[in-house]
């Protein structure tokens, strides 16, 4: 048994972009986290169930294919219903269809209850830094 902090990692919805997921998995593990990597094509309930089962501190959601707006809506509510309403929720990727003003996108996803919203092209270092800060 380890005492490492646990984070849930996965690509939400009908999305199967695996490269960033594998890199983030590598980076988080190297940084000392225990990563529960759900891989691609992950429905909302699987994120929540995994978080409850493992007592994870954060759920890191990726969406690369432009359906993020539909897929990510309601995840915070689902966490609340499951009794883990304070869990950290990060989301990042190509969250909407089309080139958009990122500030608008960020606003929208913050309003959905996500704690951090990442623009396309964000490097793992940024996520690690935020996680360290938020989990202090």
């Amino acid at each position, binding site marked *: 048994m380890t005492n490492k902090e646990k984070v849930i990692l996965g690509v939400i*919805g*009908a999305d*199967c972009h695996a*490269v960033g997921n594998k890199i983030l998995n590598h980076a988080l593990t190297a940084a000392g986290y225990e990563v529960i990597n759900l891989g691609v*094509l992950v429905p909302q309930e699987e994120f929540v169930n995994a978080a409850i089962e493992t007592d994870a501190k954060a759920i890191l959601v990726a969406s690369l*294919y432009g*359906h993020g707006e*539909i897929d990510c809506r309601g995840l915070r509510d689902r966490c609340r219903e499951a009794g883990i309403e304070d869990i950290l929720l990060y989301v990042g990727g190509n969250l909407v269809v089309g*080139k958009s003003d990122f500030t608008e996108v960020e606003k929208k996803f913050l309003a959905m209850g996500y704690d951090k919203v990442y623009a*396309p092209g964000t490097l793992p270092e940024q996520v690690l830094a935020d996680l360290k800060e938020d989990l202090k």
Partner: protein
Amino acid sequence: MELKNKKWSLDEFNAIRAEVLKTWPTGEGVNFEEGVKYQETIPAKRHFAKLLVKAKKNGETLTQPRAGVALIDEHINLLNFLRTEGEADLLPSTIDSYTRQNQYKEAQNGIEESLKAGRSLLNGFPAVNHGVEGVRRVVESVDGALQVRHGTPDARLLAEITMAAGYTSYEGGGISYNIPYAKSVSLEKTIFDWQYCDRLTGLYAEHGIEINREPFGPLTGTLVPPSISHAVAVIEGILAAEQGVKNITLGYGQCGNLVQDIAAIRALEELGEEYMAKHGYQDMVLTTVFHQWMGGFPQDEAKAFSVISWGAAAAAFSKATKVIVKTPHEALGIPTKEANAMGLRTTKQMINMLKDQVFPQTKELELEINMIKAEARCILDKVFELGNGDYAVGTVRAFEAGVLDVPFAPSKFSLNKILPARDNYGAVRLFDVGNLPFTPDIVAFHQDKIAERAKAEGRAASFQMVIDDIYAISKGRLVGRP
């Protein structure tokens, strides 16, 4: 069901077809005989398979974008825009991700939300939901040849609907639309389901309708060595040919090193011809497709244009039959139609500037062609052996054994043991060959190439080198130096 690389009998096919057409209400709208009649009316200038044959004959490289939106009229407008403003030679209908997972209810929801929002909330065209009638409106309103492009492990109903509706090309395959596009769907199932699609295409061929089939070349699009994607492409070509497909386009995704990229397309065509002949599939046409850089793009549009141009140059020099084009918005999500048209025009200009130029046949190029072919033959022949002379059976066993292995694949059926990295000149090599059945001299070739780079950089090859390579292009380099 027992998986075998053997042409299905019509009875076997029809029994399954009855089930397939029931999986969503629009399936009822499919009538094969009527579909054949409709296909006969598609004129040559809008006929994908025929345009490819002509381009191959003339030594031309045709341009094709990716594009698809939720609603029919918007989709028509988008494609016509890309044809007129983007000067696209060939057109796609990229299918949305819900349809790719057979989640037609979610796709329906996406259509309705898109209607409400006044913009597409789907990342593609949900052809199954629109049904034969809806899809035909696209075929009849768009001035160009149309192909279905997607990433659907079970694409049987989609094939039935779009082919009956008049589409003359269909992308995908039992391996290439599983390993990079699914997590836990077995290869037995996807190969079987794609035999269905190929048998359907073959059935049209028996009725005099040539429909182009295109295995998806780039796989995960991330540092895939040419020999691996070529082995998959040749296998899928053979599986399609066995079911009666007569017009096949084999694909490859740009790696970035010019000599390797040109060598890859030449090797792909030669390997395809070689294995088709070897196994007795002869009365068919093979063409090639070059995919512009499939990895991460620079966010800056000026730099993205450079990446697009470089892909166009490699496509032109390789003399691929067509090129799939990226857009300057690549790093930022799904592009506007204007950005898509710009990528197309950038590519067209480059192809035209290079069409009269010949890349010299050098010993470096010959070496790359020979290496790719030797590696691919190692894999292909081992697959054939593992399947006791059957590529379908062999493929399943080969993935289990890691004889076939695709880097960065989401599927749990890919062993994920190999690790690719660039050599000192930017060509993609393997620093861990995993269980690939390479001869010792091939393994040594890769090790030497990686060692040369590691020495130049003063570090050992590691996963960090791979990560550096993955981010390199988007950071403005080809090789991810420390």
